[in-house]
């Protein structure tokens, strides 16, 4: 069987990030880190994505968007929360408009802490997500879906 981890397509969404983590995510695409060597494509389309990579905590405006993007992605899929804000809410945790980390809205598989998360840490997190992706695919085919 062809493994989904051989060709993981990635969708990046900025829930309420200060853009620090977003720039580090884009760093992963540069010649120095080049995540395309894993077959990863940074796609903009939830219909074609396997990994949802979210930066920043969820606020009342992005909550519905996060939910919608997640629901538009076909199974198997994984969610990677990048940066401490996406993990727990970070320094904005107590703000009146912040709901908290991404896991307050959708299930998160991998947490990548850091402020901002370093490209090496993001790549490690994504590679860890790949094994979870494979496990989910195996479970899916076991169910006969």
């Amino acid at each position, binding site marked *: *069987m*062809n*493994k*989904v981890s*051989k*060709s993981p397509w990635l969708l990046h969404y900025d829930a309420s990030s200060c853009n620090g983590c977003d720039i580090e995510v884009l760093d992963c695409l540069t*010649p120095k880190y*080049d995540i*395309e*060597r*894993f*077959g990863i*494509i*940074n*796609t*903009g*389309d939830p*219909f*074609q994505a*396997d990994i949802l990579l979210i930066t920043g905590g969820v606020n009342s405006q992005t909550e519905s968007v996060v939910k919608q993007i997640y629901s*538009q992605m*076909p*199974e*198997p899929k994984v969610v990677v929360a990048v940066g401490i804000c996406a993990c727990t809410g970070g320094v904005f945790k107590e703000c009146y408009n912040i709901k908290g980390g991404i896991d307050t809205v959708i299930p998160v598989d991998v947490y990548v802490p850091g402020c901002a998360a370093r490209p090496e840490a993001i790549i490690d997190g994504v590679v860890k997500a790949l094994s979870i992706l494979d496990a989910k*695919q195996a479970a*899916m*085919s076991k169910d006969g*879906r």
Partner: protein
Amino acid sequence: MVKIVFVLAYLILAPFLGALLDGVDRIISARMQRRKGPSLLQPFYDLGKLFSKEMIAVNNVQLLLNLSYLVILMIAGCMLFYGADLLMVLFILSTADMFLIMAASSDSSPYANMGASREMLQMMAYEPLTLLIAVGFYLTTGSFQVSDIIRADTSAVLWMPGLLVGFMFTAAIKFRKSPFDLSTSHHAHQEMVKGLTTEMSGTTLAIMNIAEYYEMILLLGIFCLFFINSTWWSWIAAILICAVIFFMETLWDNISARVKWKTLLYSCWVVTLVAGGVNILILMLDK
């Protein structure tokens, strides 16, 4: 008998060859950007993954329309490799594209609809030259039949260099290469998500990709027609030149930015008129 072998070889090998070429293209692009790039077999991994994904269909008809795109492209390719009428091949090729446009406009996504209208615009840009090429081959060799064209004493390119240049220019649209990748792009981000393929996922997208591989080989086959004559070595030369042309498309893709639709339309028509039209005029006067 040989013709049947050619058709079978096209049907079986074209998607593999197309995917390999796509893999080569991605590695060369990566090297041009000083990256390592994915493995050569990456397009196969992508296809395998797409087929294994959950089926999210926005409607019932999109998969059917994409399948029609694939099947009609296969018919066009088979006719070319069988040695049938070139004019018919080109007409069927445009019919196939209409099914892709219908597939994209069958869903409600504004991005897909914009992609569909841009695809139609691209058709308007390259279609005149495509027809001129068929006329050029007729004036040069006296026949629309591919089997007659490849039996000519001299390569057709000697009589129609202008048309070759024009075809190289418009092939960038067909290969979906920058600066002409308006409707959808192989590259990640663009101003309208994924254009044509925005609402295609899993199997539907995989079928569209396979169809593109068939189309790629079909177009390279038409490029070969320019060079093949009755000698055996012209076949080898044609394949080598095709490789060069494909490399140039990749280079073009990496060094240019996407143009606006008006620039696309006007530049294609100017090239068609100047390179193609003058070439046809000379052929008509001389032959």
